[in-house]
């Protein structure tokens, strides 16, 4: 009974926690600029993240290692350190973007510029990590994140042309703005397949003392939770495609994205957009902040646990304290949150091979996962999607920066 409840809670938190600033921004931009045409990228990203989340839980449950721990042990400290530096830089940018998402939500509601909210948001974030436990962070915020189901409700109310929606599931090239199209496709995959998720998930599983009996529940959480979570992302894309695309509106800031929910739901839609953006970004910011502390502590062999008092893990707590305030400075400096988000998500796609290839090696190593090794399907799917995202990112990022078409 207890395990069934744990599965249900895990699935609900996966749905509620699926969206973050990257998922909202990329899906809204995709729908507004290209209608339903980029649904395929969202589906590919979801498929990949389901496999990878399941793998990180399986690794923790069978080997008792977090992903960071296992990479350091298997490939040596020098290799892990390289991966760590790359990951910490990307996490820094992602955290800045998530804090930016919360600030924009507050700007929408109050009219006060997002820059003024950065430090207060960082303080509340830090305070919750300092005082809260892992359970509170993972379950509390993610359950509140179920408010994002409003995007699914909006889709139902807008009555989309389903055959047109389904046609977006087949990959195709855009007739115009090809560079931007590829850039958004890469950003969607980068937003969904965020490496911090796997480090965080495996750390959580070790912290909650998962064993082999969790292999089934882990699979259910990954498949059902992430699968339904992606439905919410799809809701953002479809809503934008129906409301903004026909008017030629290209989402250049988050406040423009809010209009997609205002059309079907009026003022309630406006409020729920702000609440969804605020809660999901706040939850993701807590996870990314913690992830930075997890991977640093695991790199250097320090004590780590979110459920312990900060005094017992001073270095662990110091890392998230410093990183949260440093990332908040990106917003204080006035960097555009949407541009930061899109750039960071595309950048994430370029670092995926550095994180995922060693991860796959571990998942095929009997020493770590015994008979629970990866099958040919999971290896092939992950390699193909990560390879595609990497190639697209290498081509699309310079073209987007240089303004090509």
């Amino acid at each position, binding site marked *: 009974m207890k395990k069934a409840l744990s599965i249900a809670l895990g699935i609900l938190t996966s749905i509620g926690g699926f969206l973050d600033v990257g998922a909202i921004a990329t899906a809204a931009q995709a729908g507004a600029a290209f209608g339903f045409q980029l649904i395929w990228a969202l589906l590919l990203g979801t498929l990949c993240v389901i496999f990878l989340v399941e793998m990180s839980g399986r690794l923790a449950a069978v080997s008792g290692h977090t992903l960071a721990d296992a990479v350091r042990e298997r490939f040596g400290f020098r290799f892990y350190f390289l991966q760590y530096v790359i990951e910490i830089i990307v996490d820094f940018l992602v955290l800045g973007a998530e804090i930016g998402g919360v600030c924009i939500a507050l*700007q929408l509601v109050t*009219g006060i510029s997002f820059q003024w909210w950065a430090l207060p948001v960082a303080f509340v974030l830090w305070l919750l990590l300092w005082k809260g436990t892992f359970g509170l962070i993972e379950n509390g915020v993610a359950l509140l994140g179920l408010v994002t189901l409003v995007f699914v409700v909006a889709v139902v109310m807008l009555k989309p042309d389903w055959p047109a929606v389904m046609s977006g599931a087949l990959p195709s090239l855009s007739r*115009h703005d090809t560079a931007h199209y590829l850039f958004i496709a890469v950003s969607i995959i980068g937003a969904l397949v965020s490496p911090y998720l796997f480090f965080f998930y495996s750390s959580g599983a070790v912290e909650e003392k998962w064993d082999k009996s969790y292999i089934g529940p882990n699979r259910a959480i990954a498949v059902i939770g992430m699968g339904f979570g992606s439905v919410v992302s799809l809701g953002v894309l479809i809503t934008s495609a129906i409301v903004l695309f026909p*008017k030629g509106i290209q989402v250049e800031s988050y406040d423009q994205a*809010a209009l997609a929910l205002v059309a079907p739901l009026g003022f309630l839609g406006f409020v729920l957009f702000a609440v969804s953006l605020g809660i999901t970004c706040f939850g993701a910011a807590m996870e990314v902040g913690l992830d930075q502390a997890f991977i640093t502590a695991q790199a250097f062999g320090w004590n780590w646990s979110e459920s312990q008092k900060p005094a017992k893990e001073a270095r662990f707590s110091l890392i998230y304290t410093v990183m949260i305030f440093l990332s908040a400075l990106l917003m204080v400096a006035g960097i555009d949150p949407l541009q930061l988000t899109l750039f960071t998500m595309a950048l994430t796609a370029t670092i995926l091979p550095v994180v995922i290839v060693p991860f796959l090696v571990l998942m095929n190593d009997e020493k770590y996962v015994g008979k629970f090794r990866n099958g040919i399907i999971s290896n092939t799917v992950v390699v193909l999607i990560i390879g595609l995202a990497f190639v697209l990112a290498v081509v699309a990022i310079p073209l987007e920066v240089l303004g090509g078409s």
Partner: protein
Amino acid sequence: MRGVKPMRRYAASLALVLVLLAGCGQQSPQETLRSELQAVKSNTAIVEMVARNLARGAVPQAYAGNAIEAAKGNLDGSIQALSELPEVKGNGAQPGGLLPRLQAVQRDTEGLLDVVKKGDLSNLTPLAEQLAKEEQAIDEIVKGMGIEL
């Protein structure tokens, strides 16, 4: 010094890729025309949509003011860039051409921003409708130029 030569080769290949991509990155005047017209269309639609939603009480006034002000900034930039292009400078500057229509959009947007800032919401809908008419006229001119947005 093992590894230096491969590193040089890698750096040279990377430089070549970047040069090629930089070549692809140069926008032609036609592409600039299209992308700026697209920006005008997008920002005009935003202003109109925000104004209509403010009129029906679906968005707060502070939000509407910020959104219209940001869109106006983008519109001003795009219209400035368009007014320097030969396609818009020549025939487009004649009465009934593209440039006067773009300037009308600018005026309507300024009018809407003023109304929102003063809180005179009764004038929102007529101004939004006027803006929609200008938007439609621009669409037709752009279609006539053979540009698909």
